[in-house]
């Protein structure tokens, strides 16, 4: 991940990037896809977190998020959401499964177009 967020320590995307590296991609294309993956993960995490918070805590969270104080954001979430790290990891893993399926499909397409 290029950017640091409050959940960065929970991300492990090597399994997706390894599969991506098997595709014939230019550096720009690879960077673009990695950015899209990052954006998808970010949105999935935000959705997971917001879904667990009360109305007032959502407001605090959004403010913390924008201030980019990752430690403060994490501490606040941890005090409000039970098993926070498990829930975020699960959301990321679920998304990764879909992303890997997409890469496999892309690999198949690539083979078909080369044959």
């Amino acid at each position, binding site marked *: 991940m290029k950017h640091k967020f409050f959940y960065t320590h929970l991300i492990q995307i090597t399994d997706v990037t390894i599969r991506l590296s098997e595709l014939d991609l230019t550096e720009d294309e690879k960077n673009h896809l990695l950015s899209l993956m990052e954006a998808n993960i970010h949105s999935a995490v935000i959705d997971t977190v917001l879904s667990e918070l009360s109305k007032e805590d959502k407001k605090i969270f959004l403010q913390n998020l924008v201030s980019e104080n990752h430690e403060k954001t994490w501490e606040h979430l941890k005090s409000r959401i039970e098993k926070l790290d498990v829930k975020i990891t699960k959301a990321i893993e679920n998304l990764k499964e*879909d992303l890997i399926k997409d890469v496999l499909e892309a690999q198949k397409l690539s083979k078909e*177009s080369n044959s």
Partner: protein
Amino acid sequence: MPVKKGNSHYQFLAKKWTDRHRDLQSKIFTKHEESFKWFADNSKQLVVGSLAGIMLLTTPVLDKIPQAFSSGSAQVAQTIDKKVFLIYDLRKVLPSDVRALTPDEEKDVTTVLSRNFDFSIKAELEGKRLNTTYGIIGAEQHLARFPGDNMFTHFKNADDAQKYWSSGMAPGLGAWRYFTDASDALGVLTQEDIDREKYYIAVQTFLAPGFDSNTKEYTDFFKYRKMLVVNPQNGKAIVADIADAGPSPWTGKQLGGSPEVMSYLERFDGAQKGAVLYFFIDDPNDTIPLGPVNL
């Protein structure tokens, strides 16, 4: 960057993941709409002034999209507030702290601004530059435009008076004294005079490199010089003119804006103060009007 023929796997993934991300965002906004609306209404100081800008909260800055792909997505892109793109682009090139930009950073910012605005934008013009192009802006007061101008003669209409009265009138004059020397100014005050006061900024002309050794030349150059002032956090931009010198370096601020400039840019003073970008506009024929710029 042209996309190679036959790399359908890239096109496939890029489209799939862009669509997925859009769907996710849409889901988030629908599910938590109330919170985002509250945030948009209450966060002028934090980041954004529109709901479109809130999208930034759920999207990290994306790497440059290959041209062939972005042109394919042009229809989608056009539906998004152009300010959001400006915010994105500036976030990618601005440092996290507010300080004078390095030559490379300044070049990148100039490129981004030039791409978004239809006029020539420069950090250095006629061999002259200010001490910085990125700084904290503070609130200035109204300036007297002619002898006798005061809070009761200053505003064009009741709405303006109501909106900007509280800023008050500066006890002294601007760097170039009155905007018109006419003694019966109420009769001859031109629209140009009015706009120059309304959309003025105060910059640290005295800190410009070379100012001390050629004060007269620099003072003439800075007088009513047009600058593009941009709030990089909400994408709002205004064409302003230099009509005062300041603030003092000890204030921790690098420039000041008239009440109208500050209001439009959604910038405030005190604990809530924030940064803006300010670059010269090369307008030798004086064709670019002062005031807010719509993207």
